[in-house]
């Protein structure tokens, strides 16, 4: 019973892991830039939702309509100020520099968050926060279920955009072969900008959903960056639904570790799984070569 309950909770959080990974996967597959500050962007999204709720009583799901565009703009800014210079180099140097820049960004964003909002944990508590759906003997928190469905819907929308829209296809083409894409008349710089901003917006949405069902604080950044990385290593790059599935797998693995090893080792199991997959099968369980 406990196992089943934990597995449900693991499934529910797994959707968020997938969403978190999707943003990072998008920017990496298109720009070949690994932004290790992705978790901090998730943190910022979480605070956005938190403050909109706390200051102006805006329902957290509704606030995402504001948080997503705001984070999109932040993504534009970050690309313009930092990452556009990183993409000028060729791949090896690009990855190296993006790791460093991302690392520095982690530090700065983390410090700014503590400076403005203190290191305290925050959570969004609405009137319906505690509502639970009973299935059999199991409790399924409504909020987390809604978040999961929301995350899935966002990924589905993103998938449609990439598959059908002119700019979505441009993004996919640029990810596959940027020179060939340029020869189609696709402005590669603008495509990079769009992909990065989208990735940031995705992080923001993930963060908003995190603040709804879980606590946030300035320090959750590193944790979520690692979660996103674990999912990417598990699922490989290039597939949004692979990311989602990878996220679910991670959520379930964590749930099982909670049952068999106890709560404190939840994070560790995911990371150890990550190291094992890294060593044994770095292209991920479903993915093409990263």
């Amino acid at each position, binding site marked *: 019973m406990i196992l089943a309950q934990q597995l449900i909770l693991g499934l529910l959080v797994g959707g968020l892991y997938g969403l978190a990974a999707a943003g990072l996967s998008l920017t990496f597959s298109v720009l070949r830039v*690994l932004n290790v500050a992705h978790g901090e962007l998730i943190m910022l999204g979480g605070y956005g939702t938190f403050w909109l709720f706390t200051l102006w009583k805006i329902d957290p799901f509704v606030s995402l309509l504001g948080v997503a565009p705001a984070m999109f703009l932040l993504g534009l800014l970050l690309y313009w100020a930092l990452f556009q*210079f990183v993409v000028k180099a060729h791949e*090896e140097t690009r990855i190296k520099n993006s790791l460093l820049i991302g690392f520095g960004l982690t530090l*700065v964003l983390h410090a*700014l968050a503590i400076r403005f909002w203190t290191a305290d944990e925050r959570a969004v508590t609405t009137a319906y926060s505690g509502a639970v759906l009973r299935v059999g003997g199991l409790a399924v928190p409504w909020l987390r279920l809604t978040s999961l469905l929301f995350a899935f819907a966002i990924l589905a929308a993103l998938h449609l955009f990439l598959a059908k829209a002119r700019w979505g296809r441009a993004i996919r083409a640029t990810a596959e072969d940027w020179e060939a894409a340029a020869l189609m008349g696709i402005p590669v710089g603008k495509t990079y900008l769009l992909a990065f901003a989208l990735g940031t917006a995705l992080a923001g949405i993930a963060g908003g959903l995190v603040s709804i069902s879980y606590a946030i604080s300035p320090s959750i950044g590193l944790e979520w960056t690692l979660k996103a990385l674990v999912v990417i290593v598990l699922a490989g790059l290039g597939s949004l639904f692979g990311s989602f599935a990878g996220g679910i797998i991670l959520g379930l693995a964590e749930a099982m570790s909670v049952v068999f090893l106890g709560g404190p080792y939840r*994070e560790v199991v995911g990371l150890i799984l990550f*190291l094992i997959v890294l060593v044994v099968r770095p292209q991920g369980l479903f993915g093409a070569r990263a």
Partner: protein
Amino acid sequence: MKLLVAGILFIAVFASLPLITTRSDLLNLGVQIFLAVVLAQSWNLLGGYAGQINLGHAAFFGLGALVTRTLWVGGTPLILALFPGALVAMLFGLMIGVPAFRLRGAYFAIGTLGLAEILRITIGNLMPQISTIPVRELASYNILPRYYLTLGMAILCVVLVALLIPSRIGLGIRAVREDEAAAEATGVSALRHKLLALALSTALSGLAGGAFAYYHVSYYPQHTFSPAWTFDAVLISYIGGVGTVHGPVLGALFYVILRELLAVKLVEFHLIIFGTLFIFVVLFFPGGLVEAWRRIRRMIARST
């Protein structure tokens, strides 16, 4: 040659400092600077010279601290306690390096990032209580041996790197950084050179951790695995001048002293400043303070 003179001067000044003053705050600052030098120089060896970015440098610092502290508090003489710490750090480093270095791209960086977090969380769970120096040591606690130990380590670290880099092995290491494929083509085993740099880097970091364990009266064991130590190492290396011998030294002086001065104000402020400065250096001024100093000297020379 100028560097050698500057180095000797540095050593002379810092070695004689305790003879001039007994102010513990200055001596503590000294220890911080020396630890920072070792932390940064060890990172610089792998990151600056071998081109492998280690985002979990804290893991090896923490392992050194853990092993040394445990042994020393348990009665082992310090000298004997330091080396197992360095050794364990090195073994963990190789454990990540051997699989990760075969792959290109970011695998080593994120692997070390993950390792540091695993250790931090695990140690935090297994050893949540604060670790304090036993009473017998506390009574006779003296900053001087700590001061000279860390100074000695800083000197050792810098000299090691200074001797290694122009050597044949050092040349191989740098060749691997420039172009792995080309290096392999000329018979330089990329894997072996990367692993060598990794082994030295992590061992030195472990030594620094061991010194920290000897120096710090009480701390939470998981704190030594905190990413803050990695940040320090990376920021100092880049701000000082990554890929040079004296860059990390300059950077350590700049960073630690400025941090002391800025800490009077809000605590996080210095992180924002250094973080931004670091990003600026990586993007636009990769030579760091070393390069800045070179340009200033050239400007002065030109105007006279």
